[in-house]
C-alpha cells in the first residue's frame, strides 16, 4: 500500500530527515505559495522548482522514480482539466494547472517522505493547529491500515459468498450485503475504539496525552529554513527578471 512505502521512506536518516518538522512545513508553505502565485514564464519556473524538489529527494536518498510516480496521483484530475481548458480555448491554462498541481503534490511528498507523520503532526501543533484534531489524525493514521485490512477481508468474504450464490443474488441483495458489511465494519471499529479506551484507562490515563520527546529547533534547522525559503523565491525572481 502507498502509505506503507511512505512510512518506510520517512524513517530514513538523511540530513533532510533529521531537520525539525516545523522548518520543513514552513519551507513547504513558502514553496507552495511561490508556485501558486506564479503566472509568467511558467515553463521555466516549473522546471526550476522541479529541479529543486528532485534535488531535495535525491539528497534525502528517496527513490526518485518512485516519488515522481506517487505524485502522479493528481494527474487524472488535472489531465481532465487540461482537456476542458483545451475545449474552452485556453490550453495554456490547462498546462499551467497540470504543472502547478503536479509540482505541489511533489513538494508535499518531499516533506512527507522525509518526516514521520506523527512528528509532522506534532510540528503543526507548535504553530497553532488544535491539539485535539492532530491527536485524532495521529490515531487515524495508526489504525488506517488495520481497518483497511479488515475491510479488505470482509470485501473478499462477501465477494466469495456472492460468487457462490451468483444465481440467487440480485443486485439489490448484493447492495444490501455490501451496506451490511459496512455496518459490521462500523460496529467493529467502534468496538475497537472502546478496547483502546479501556487499554488507556488500564495504564493510568488521566485525560491528557503526554509526549515523550519535545521538538528542538537547532542551528542546522535555522540554516535549512533560511535556504529552503530563499531558494524558490530567488529562483523565481531571477527567472522573471530575465529578458
Amino acid at each position: 500500500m502507498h502509505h506503507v512505502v511512505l512510512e518506510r521512506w520517512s524513517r530514513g536518516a538523511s540530513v533532510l530527515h533529521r531537520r525539525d518538522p516545523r522548518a520543513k512545513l514552513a519551507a513547504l508553505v513558502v514553496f507552495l505559495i511561490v508556485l501558486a502565485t506564479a503566472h509568467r514564464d511558467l515553463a521555466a519556473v516549473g522546471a526550476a522548482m522541479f529541479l529543486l524538489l528532485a534535488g531535495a529527494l535525491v539528497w534525502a536518498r528517496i527513490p526518485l522514480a518512485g516519488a515522481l510516480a506517487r505524485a502522479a496521483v493528481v494527474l487524472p484530475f488535472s489531465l481532465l482539466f487540461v482537456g476542458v481548458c483545451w475545449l474552452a480555448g485556453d490550453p495554456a491554462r490547462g498546462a499551467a494547472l497540470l504543472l502547478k498541481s503536479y509540482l505541489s503534490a511533489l513538494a508535499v511528498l518531499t516533506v512527507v517522505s522525509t518526516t514521520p507523520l506523527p512528528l509532522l503532526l506534532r510540528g503543526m501543533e507548535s504553530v497553532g493547529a488544535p491539539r485535539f484534531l492532530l491527536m485524532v489524525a495521529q490515531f487515524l493514521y495508526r489504525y488506517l491500515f488495520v481497518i483497511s485490512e479488515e475491510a479488505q477481508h470482509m470485501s473478499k468474504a462477501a465477494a466469495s459468498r456472492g460468487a457462490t450464490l451468483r444465481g440467487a443474488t440480485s443486485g439489490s441483495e448484493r447492495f444490501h450485503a455490501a451496506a451490511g458489511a459496512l455496518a459490521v465494519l462500523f460496529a467493529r471499529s467502534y468496538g475497537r475504539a472502546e478496547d483502546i479506551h479501556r487499554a488507556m484507562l488500564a495504564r493510568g490515563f488521566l485525560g491528557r496525552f503526554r509526549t515523550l520527546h519535545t521538538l528542538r529547533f537547532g542551528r542546522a534547522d535555522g540554516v535549512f529554513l533560511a535556504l529552503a525559503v530563499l531558494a524558490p523565491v530567488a529562483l523565481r525572481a531571477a527567472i522573471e527578471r530575465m529578458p
Partner: protein
Amino acid sequence: MVARIFESCYLEASRVHIYDGFLSTPVWAAMDVVAVPAVGYVVRRAQRGFDEARVPLLGVMGAFVFAAQMINIPVGVGTSGHLVGGALLAITLGLPTASVVMCAIIAIQALVFQDGGILALGANIMNMAIVGVLAGYLPYSLWGRGRWRKSAIFAGGALSVMVSALLALAELLFSGVPMPRSVLLLSMALFAVSALLEGGITLAVVEALEAIQPGFVRRPAAGRSFARGAIGLAAVLLAAVGFLFASTAPDGIERLGFETGAAHARAMISTPLAGYQWNLPGSPWVRKAGAGLTGIALIYGACLLIGRGVARRRSV
C-alpha cells in the same frame, strides 16, 4: 466498457478534493482564513472540555470512513458506488464530532496521499467537513424522529455530497477555471447521481447499523427550534440553487472563461514576494454572481443569529 468509464467519472464526481494550483490566490486564501475559526469552533465543541479521552474514538472512526470509502458497493448495471461518509458520521456521532473526524480525514488525505492540496485545505475542509457535514445532518435533525425518517437520512446523504460538490465547483469557477457549459452540466449531472447514491448507501448502512445495535444511531437532538433548522436548511438550499441558476446563465460561462484568461494576464504578480494584487476578473457577470452569493451568505448569517435568539427565548 461504458460502465467502466461511467464508474471512473462517478469516482471523480464523488471525490471533490481540490488540488493546489486550481484555485486563484484570493479564493484559496479566503477559504483558509474562513476555515481557521470554523475548525477551531468544531474542535472545541467536539472535545467537550480538556479531556482527550474521545481521541481514539474519533481517530478510529476516521480510519473506518477512510477504509469504507474504498469498498465497492454494487449498484447494479455492473457498476459500483462508494460511500463518502459525511452524513453517516453526522447521524451516528453528532455534528461537531463528525466535522472533526472529516477534518482529520481530509488532512491525512492531503498529507499522506497527496489527495487534495495543502493551500487548498481551507477550501476542502469548508466544503466537505464543515458545510458538507452540516448539510448531511440538517434533514435528519428536522425530520429524523417521525414518519419521514428514512427520507431524511437519504436526503442528508444526498445533500452533503451535492452541497460539497457545488461549493467546490463554485470555488473553481470563481478562480477562473474555464468550464464550457457542456462540461458544467455534465459535472452537475454526475454530482446529482453521486448524491443520490450517497443517500441510498447512507440509508442502507444506517438501517443495517440499527439492526446490529440500535444504540449507534442517535436520536436527533431534542428541543431544537424547528424554525431555525428549517431556515438553515433553506439557506443552504438557496445557496446551492442560487448558484446553479446563476451558473447556467447562457453566455455567462463562456464569457467568464475568456475574460478571466485575459484578466489573469493583467493580474500578474510583479514581485516574487507573497504579496499580490487582487484583480477581480472584470466580467460584470462574476460581480453579480459574487454579490448574489455574498448576499445569500449574509442572509444565512442573519437568520442563524435570529434563530439562535428565538431558540434561546423559547427554551427559557
